[in-house]
């Protein structure tokens, strides 16, 4: 199955934030939709430029309750950055003409629940949720 076929059959929940959003704005977006696990940062041209994981954001919010701090975590507590400073610029993605089952291990290798599907301009056209695909695979094997 092609990624494009999957996307047309499965409505996606796009977790997109802008690069100048604060941590508070990002968390509102993340927690506003219980199905969101990964957020993607877009620039002024709507091109995806980075990735924010649920785990990273949760760690930032809960930092003051954590006894274990690296120096960078100390500074993040004092001067919290915006989305562009918090994001990872290296992230896994796929295009709609790829085979669905070939990209799944990319998700597993990068511990990404929501894999972004990008067009040629690097804009987000959908997201593949790992749990959705797993459910489908289990149904097929049954």
């Amino acid at each position, binding site marked *: 199955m092609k990624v494009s076929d999957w996307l047309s059959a499965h409505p996606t929940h796009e977790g997109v934030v802008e690069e100048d959003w604060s941590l508070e704005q990002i968390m509102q977006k993340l927690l506003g939709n219980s199905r969101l696990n990964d957020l993607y940062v877009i620039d002024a041209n709507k091109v995806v430029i*980075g990735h924010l994981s649920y785990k*990273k954001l949760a760690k930032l919010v809960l930092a*003051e*309750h*954590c*006894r*274990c*701090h*690296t*120096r*960078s975590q*100390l*500074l993040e*507590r*004092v*001067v919290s*950055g915006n989305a562009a*400073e*918090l*994001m*990872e*610029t*290296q992230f*896994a993605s796929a295009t709609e003409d790829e085979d669905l089952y070939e990209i799944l291990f990319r998700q597993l*290798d*990068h511990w990404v629940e929501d894999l972004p599907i990008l067009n040629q301009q690097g804009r987000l056209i959908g997201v593949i949720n790992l749990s959705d695909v797993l459910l489908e695979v289990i149904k097929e094997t049954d």
Partner: protein
Amino acid sequence: MAIEYSNILLVGLLLLAGLFLGQIAARLSLPRVVAYVLVGVMFSPDLLGRYFAIASYQWSQPITQTALAIIAFIIGGSITAAQLQRIGRSILGIALGESLGAAIIVFLAFWMLAPALDGVPLFSIALVFAAISTTTAPAGTIAVLHQYRAKGLLTNTLLGVVALDDALGIILFALAMAVLTGGSIEYGLELALVDIGLALSVGSVLGLLLARLATYIQQKDLLLALTLGTILVTTGLAETFHFSILLSAMALGFSSRQFVFSAGDKLFGSIDFLEETVFLMFFTLAGTHFHIQVFLQHLDIILLYFFARVIGKLLGAAIGGRVSGSEPKVVRWLGLTLIPQAGVAVGLALSLSHRHGFEEISGVIVNVIIATTLVYEFIGPLAARFALKRAGELFEPETDKTNNKI
């Protein structure tokens, strides 16, 4: 007949004993680094080292140099230019004040009061101790903040200051080393500029290269090899061309974090993963340099360093706070929270053992730093708790026990 144990066996024992005692220390709210040093002290020549002696330290030189470079790389990579711009006058002013305050008071105290040591000029000894005195160890203090749910302006300022001052310490130490290599002050300063310029340039260029290459590598394990390889190349170049290993590694970390244009979690995550094992190996080995005889013979120097550094931190933080316009409670109490000293100080002291002109005296310096580190780490958290309580920023204690990292 005494058995000659393999060095590998002894290093293995050090690692396992350090790991075990480190876990106990964490449960007692003590920094694990202190436990590692204590294990090393237990295996020092006057104690268990009589039976399990490490035959030679020659093989350990590349390990300690690399470990130090990794520590400096992580310190450099924890700060970004954007954060420095936003961090505020108060934190920058106090970090500068307490670092320079400790350095100046320790320098003056040693220059005026310290006895001569093995023919090394007092100026050199004073400068070395002054540079080492700037560093702090946040873990013990962070444990207090966490345990009592500390919150407020003093807490926030403290977090920023302890995150920055080790970087300042490394810069001052590199500067001091370059000045001492020069012989005279004029030539020394000239040499210091060349040394620092080279270290910053090489570190920055290789940092840019590391950040660019990292974009082509997706697997975390390969990213570790890339990062470690670049740290080794930087360290090797610094050793070959005689510029500061610590400063170039710190510049490498800072530059790669800048040029990766992101939080750098992937790039630094791989080396962070290695950090605790590096600490474990480095600080247990550092502890084995402890000698009871040297300790007893130089109690006067230990006391001098101990009190001069505390006075310098208190005065420097207060002056830095006042000049930068900090709130009165920050000016009054912050200095007391900056007493702990551990990892970076021990590392800087140990780096002298391979430095020309310091081979003889480095044993004394390492012993002074190890002895004072142990005392500072017990007193520091108590002083921090007192200061935070007086500033009204302590709340209810927590009961959970987890681990410290720094």
